[in-house]
Every structure is written in structure tokens, then in C-alpha cells.
């Protein structure tokens, strides 16, 4: 394996991890902060 190939694989892995990690973290954050859906007021006109 040449140095260029090795570097390319490492860069591809880093990019994949960043995008995959961002997907997971954002999805979990949005569930926790419950901002993905709109509710209607459920109290008495609250």
C-alpha cells in the first residue's frame, strides 16, 4: 500500500466518521430537545 493510498483511506475514514457522527448527534439532539415536531397547546389555552 502506497503512502497516497494509505492517506486517502485515512481521509475517507475521517470524513465518514465526521458525517456519520454528525448524523447521530444531531438526530439524538433533536429528539432530546423535541424541536422536530410542533405540538398544539395541551393545557387550558396554555
Amino acid at each position, binding site marked *: 500500500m502506497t503512502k497516497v493510498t494509505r492517506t486517502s483511506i485515512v481521509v475517507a475514514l475521517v*470524513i465518514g466518521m*465526521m*458525517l456519520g*457522527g*454528525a*448524523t447521530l*448527534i*444531531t*438526530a439524538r*439532539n*433533536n429528539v*432530546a*430537545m*423535541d*424541536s*422536530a*415536531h*410542533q*405540538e*398544539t*397547546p*395541551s*393545557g*387550558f*389555552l*396554555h
Partner: protein
Amino acid sequence: MIQDLGLHRAARRSLLSIGVTAALITINHLAVLGPKAFGLGAVLIVAPTLLLWWFMRTRSTVAFGGYLVMNLWVVIGFGLLKGLWKSTLPVFVGTLLSALATAYPRPTLGPVWVEVSGVAMFIGSAFVAAFAYQLVRTRWGTARASILSAPAGVLALGVLVAAYVVTDRDRWVAPSNGIVKIGVIVPTGGPYAVLGNSFLKAVQMAQSDLRGTKYQYQLVLVDVGQDPDQARAAIQRAIQDERVSAIVGGISRFGQVTRPLATQARILHTCVCSVTSIGDGAYNFTNIPSPEAEGVRWVQEAQRRGIRNIALLTQDYPSIQGHLEALKVEVRRAGLTITDAQEFADSVTDFRKMIAQARASHPDVYYVETLNPQLDVLGQQLADARIRNIASVVAPSVSQRPELFEATWYTDSNLRDFAFKTRFEKLYPGTQFATHMMPYAYDDFNMIVQAFERGENPAVYVRNLRTYEGNAGTLTKVAGSGNFQSMPAVWEIEHGRPVLLSHQ
């Protein structure tokens, strides 16, 4: 000749990286710009392509300079300022910091595709920078083209991460001149009159109850009208011009408008709102019993009274449907029976057929929930039909004619000390006491005061709270949550007045 080949190769790579990154920028900006994002993408692809074509044909310095300016725009404007600072750092560093310390807010992130395209935009811009550097070296030097030195890149990234860590932290700032301005955001007219005025008076009472405080607390009353869309400008004025340090608010539709503005200004916003998503646990917190808690308490009381069969007479309205859904879950869980369920529109004024149908199902109790003026019309017709076994959630507390609901029991907010209600009514004789609003407003104001008196950033102080001994009993909040929970109590109309029957 060899240098020309190298220049062509470097130019191709550079242009390809710009094209891919421009596509990512277009995707990322669809959320904000809509179809106009395609125009932005077209500019980012066509302009560099033409400039590079011009340069490759003529070796024009102007064309090359223009091309590099376009690269800088992509790298700094979109890659660093937007991709790195607004997506990559909040997603990774912001999330990590908020997990480690409550002084850091949980980042407010957009939809997954927006944040991921933001991160991709940053990665793409790194390639744009690297290939532009390679092109410059090939253009001006005979030296071997290479990518940017890795240590320099890591150092620059480290500086940016450090800057983010410093700026993301919520710090205590002592109020200037010892005056704390607290914005009060609640509608007080139209359908919100009873709740809104209860809220406002509760906050004013809390302010006048303060004794021997370190700072002076000023209320900034924000006239938000009755339309949430028009309220935005008034709330923005309060934040920017009046420079309020925190906000107490009520009514979900207005809390939903306030939430992003409070987050942007990084100030605490407490809201007596039933829409739980308003409470993000970062800067926004809700404080009201949930419909589920009302349902649990209602069914407990029904079982205590030996009730097995229930007839439902309810208005078709979102707030009421929320209560009803939670109630039905608890009714099923407890093995009770709904003998009849009728829902009506807000135009109905003659309930006699409905009452007759419900009566025919032989219920132990009639569950009645509707807004005024229908509430009192229905109450009158139930009284005419000599029906007295009525129960509800909250509704009778806002009746203008509570005598119609004599002996009706219902769940509503708890009161630690009933004298609190009496004191309120003496102070504001013309204001109807909305139990479902007032104690929470009072407590929300005092939470903010406590934070300042302790010398803590208000948002951080509330993030750290797990329990609060409030006027509506003990409030609880789980770590990371933006919703204070509390258990309602059972009330009954006696001699035309609401009486607190039980504590939790």
C-alpha cells in the same frame, strides 16, 4: 510543458473541489433561502469556472486573482464561518461541552440534513483551500506543489476550537447599576384575558413580595397583542432595546415565538406553557402540570370516589383534546368504562340532546370540558337537567358562573398554601385567579431572582435545578430536561367558589 500539465491538473482538482463544495452549500442553504439557493450555487460554480477558463487561456493575473477571491469566499464565508462555526463546532464540541458541564448550553441544532451538509461544507472547503494552495504554488513556483502543512492546519483548528469553548460558555454578568430587567411576555386581552392577567398580576405580586434583595428587579411589560406573529417584533425590541436579562412568559403560542429569540440572545426564558417542546433545557423552560399528570390525578380521584362509568361531553379544541387523550389512557389503565363520548364544535349552544344521550348511558360521572362561553351554557343546561355529578380538568376554575358547577370536582394546579390565593384576591380584587397559571408565574419570577441573588447566570442556575419548592408544591425536573413537572390537586366548587380538596 511539464509545468503546464501540472497547472492543468491542479486547476482541474481545484475546480472540482469548488463544484462539489458549491453543491453542498446549495443543499445547506435550501433551508434558509429556498429555491434561491440554486442561484447561489450557480454563482459559486459558474463564476470560478469562467475565471479559471479565462486564466488558463490568457494567464491573466486579474482572472487568477478573481478565481482566488472566489476560493476565499467559499473557504472563509461558507467553510469556516458557516460550516465550521455554525455546524461542525456546535454539533461536536457544543454537544460534548454541554454533556460535561451545565455552564454550556445544549446546542440548538437544525434538521439532520442541514447540520450534516454544514459539516460536509466545512470538509469541502478544506479541500478547496488545499487545492487552491496547490494551484498557487504550481502557478508561481517551480517548487513541488504540496498540500498545506498539517501542523499549521491543526494549530489553526485548535485556535478556533478554543475560541468556541470560550465563547460558548454562559457566564454570570452582574447587572449594570444593580438593576435587573425582566421581560414579561404574556397576552392579556381577548381569549387570554383571564390567564394573561392572572399571570401578570402574579409576577407583579412576586416583585412586590421581594425584601432585602441585593439587586433591584424591574419588570418590562411587553405588549404582545393577541397575534403571535405580531408579537415577534415586540419581543425583539424588549431583548435588544430594553436589554432584558431574562424573560417570564405564558401561553404556548407566544412561548413558541419567544423561544428562538431567547436562545439567540442567550437569556433565560421560563414559560407557563403546556407545549413541552418549548422547554429545550438550554435557555427555555416550561412550568405547568402535563396533561398526563392531570389524567393520572383525575383517575386516582375517580377511583377514590368509586366511579366506574364515565360519560364525556367535550369541545373539539386542541387543549381539551390533549387532556382527553391523556385521560383516556389512564381510564383504560385503571379498567374504567367510557359509557358515552360526545364532542361538539364551538358553535353549539343547545346541548340538551347530548345530555339526554349521555344520561341514557347511565354514567357515574359526566366529564365536561369546554371553553367559555359554552362552558357556562352547558353548565346551565346540565343544572336544568338536574345533573350534579360532574367532573372536569381545570375548566370550572375559569367559569364566569361557578355556582352552576356546585359540587363539581376537577383537577387543577396544587397550591402549597391556600392563603396565597386569598392574598392574591385581596390584592387584586378585580382579577380572576387562574390556578392553572398564577402560582407558576410567581415561582418562575422567583427562580430568576434567586439566580441573580446567588450570582449565577440565570440559565445555568435553572439548568442545574432538580427540585424547587414552589407555590404549586414541589416542582421537579430531570437532568437535561426543559420541563418542570408538578402534580395537580383535586378541587371542588363549594358555595360557588373553588375549594382545594386534597394535596398531592
